[in-house]
């Protein structure tokens, strides 16, 4: 049903004069976007969190104790006080600085995983959708296998046996278990486009299959996947924190919200702030990504709802 709907929506885009009107129209769309609070609020938070992740030193020093590695065991677990708005963690380090520095790993994993997922999904989805036959059969069966996993369980099993737990390895494992949904969407999106008349026309003019795929099909079928991917970032950040919290994701010397929550689980009944502040940052970040993704989906691809 979805692909049929996709075709209906796609039909008007065959009009050739779109090229000349696009710049003015696009600027109008952008201006419209900035008037909508459903876009502006989450987008501002996302930009802010990304800035924090990129330049943590700019933010961590606001209260005078910006170095996450300056620790004094005597301060272990102390609550919020002047100069230390979030208090201290169990090692006696400033919790605010640590939470600020924790943004980098979460955001990196979210973006890296989503980028990997996108590359795989677009490539495999386009191949399966366009060529069909054996290629489609093979890709679809492999997808079925990964759909057979409850994802968290699959990730735990693989990470449990992974020798290194770095941003890259965790991202790889997360991507391994999250490429399927996007690939399926890409495949059906390409399927909906491949028999439209402008493709037939391109083929009639003698264009080869790869030229058709790259020049004509991909640009027109990538929107739903790209929009879903933005929704995916939030889910990936959650999954990473859950895995790290369980003890199979990032490990202690690296600073991340998941690691902080993992440490907090032993002490939270007495030192609630250890749980509260990393959790708040995590929730606000994920919520911002999810709301932004949801808005983009409504705006650019109402079909997916």
């Amino acid at each position, binding site marked *: 049903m979805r692909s049929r709907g996709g075709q209906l929506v796609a039909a008007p885009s065959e009009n050739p004069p779109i090229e000349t009107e696009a710049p003015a129209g696009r600027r109008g769309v952008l201006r419209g976007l900035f008037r909508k609070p459903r876009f502006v609020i989450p987008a501002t938070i996302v930009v802010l969190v990304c800035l924090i992740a990129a330049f943590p030193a700019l933010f961590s020093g606001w209260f005078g104790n910006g170095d996450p590695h300056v620790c004094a065991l005597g301060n272990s677990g102390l609550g919020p006080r002047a100069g230390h708005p979030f208090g201290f963690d169990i090692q006696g380090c400033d919790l605010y600085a640590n939470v600020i520095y924790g943004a980098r790993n979460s955001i990196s994993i979210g973006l890296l995983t989503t980028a990997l997922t996108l590359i795989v999904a677009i490539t495999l989805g386009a191949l399966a959708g366009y060529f069909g036959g054996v290629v489609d059969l093979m890709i679809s*069966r*492999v997808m*079925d*296998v*990964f*759909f*057979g*996993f*409850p*994802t*968290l*369980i*699959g990730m*735990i*099993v*693989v990470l*449990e*046996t*992974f*020798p290194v737990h770095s941003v890259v390895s965790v991202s790889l494992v997360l991507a391994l278990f999250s490429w399927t949904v996007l690939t399926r969407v890409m495949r059906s999106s390409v399927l909906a486009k491949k028999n439209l008349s402008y493709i037939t026309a391109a083929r009639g003019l003698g264009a080869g299959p790869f030229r058709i795929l790259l020049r004509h099909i991909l640009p027109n079928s990538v929107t739903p996947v790209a929009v879903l991917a933005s929704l995916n970032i*939030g889910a990936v950040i*959650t999954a990473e*924190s*859950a895995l790290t*919290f*369980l*003890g*199979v994701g990032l490990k202690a010397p690296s600073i991340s919200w998941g690691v902080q*929550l993992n440490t907090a*689980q032993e002490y*939270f*009944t007495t030192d*609630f702030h250890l*749980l509260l502040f990393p*959790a708040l940052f*995590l*929730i606000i970040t*994920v*919520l911002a990504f*999810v*709301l932004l993704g*949801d808005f983009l989906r409504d705006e650019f691809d109402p079909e997916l*709802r």
Partner: protein
Amino acid sequence: MGRYLLRRILLMIPVLFGTTFVIYAAVFALPGDPVQALAGPNTVVTAAFRNAVDQKYHLDEPFLLRYWHYLVALLHGDFGVDLNNVEVSSIITASLPTTVDLALTTWVLEAVLGVALGVVAAVRAGKTADYAILGGSMLVLGMPYFIIAYVAQVVLGVWLGWFPASGIEDGWPMSYLLPAACLALFGLPEISRLTRASVLENLHADYVDTAVTKGLSRMRILYRHVVRNSLIPVTSMLGVNLGFLLSGTILIEGIFNLPGLGYQIFQGVQQHNGPVVVGISTLFVLVFLVVNLIVDLLYGALDPRIRLA
């Protein structure tokens, strides 16, 4: 129906092989020493242990043959022996009841609340109640649910003392209510959104007009006709959700200290007890596949259009 059943089961076979193969390959074929991986990175492996593991897992044989041995043992219900020399299958038998109790409680909560919220949202579409439910769903979707569980445990369990904060000493229902509610919260947004969409679609169906012209009351139309027909896609979603629910038990049982299968994985991960993690995960994957099969069959029985397509 017979042919549909056969086709569904045949389709499941490659998936079954594939999933067990991925798990098997993850443990035994990734770079690094498999024996060391089984023992955990910080354990010193003795020659005796290495020999025992080599024999147990046929490590001296070619990879595919080893996978075959693993599969045969699995089909005989043999999940291997963990690092404390306890049969994984006996751990499973001991922990299964707790997880079944938790999962069923969660499932019932999820189904009842999810459908109720979805119906309310559909009937009140575009009004305050609808937006409130949508907003609540977004909030829950955006929150890592292990944090929700933690906060619920601290606030409702420790500070207010309304529910037992951990363990299963108080037995079913009391000890299970809070963990089940936290776990159910995770699946609620999807169920209620799907129900809403499905009910909205059915509200505009021709048979509803017929029922209206027959003079049936609003409530009767809603419950006897619309909701019943709307539940078909929801059934399949509930099936898919069981898989996520099973992975959810790892975090929830770990946080609330319920000695179920998920708790064993949680402990297994922290103690680097590889065989327990792999054994129970395999079981979860198998349960997930079988439940999805049952749900698909049920779906076919509920809606003949699926079967005939």
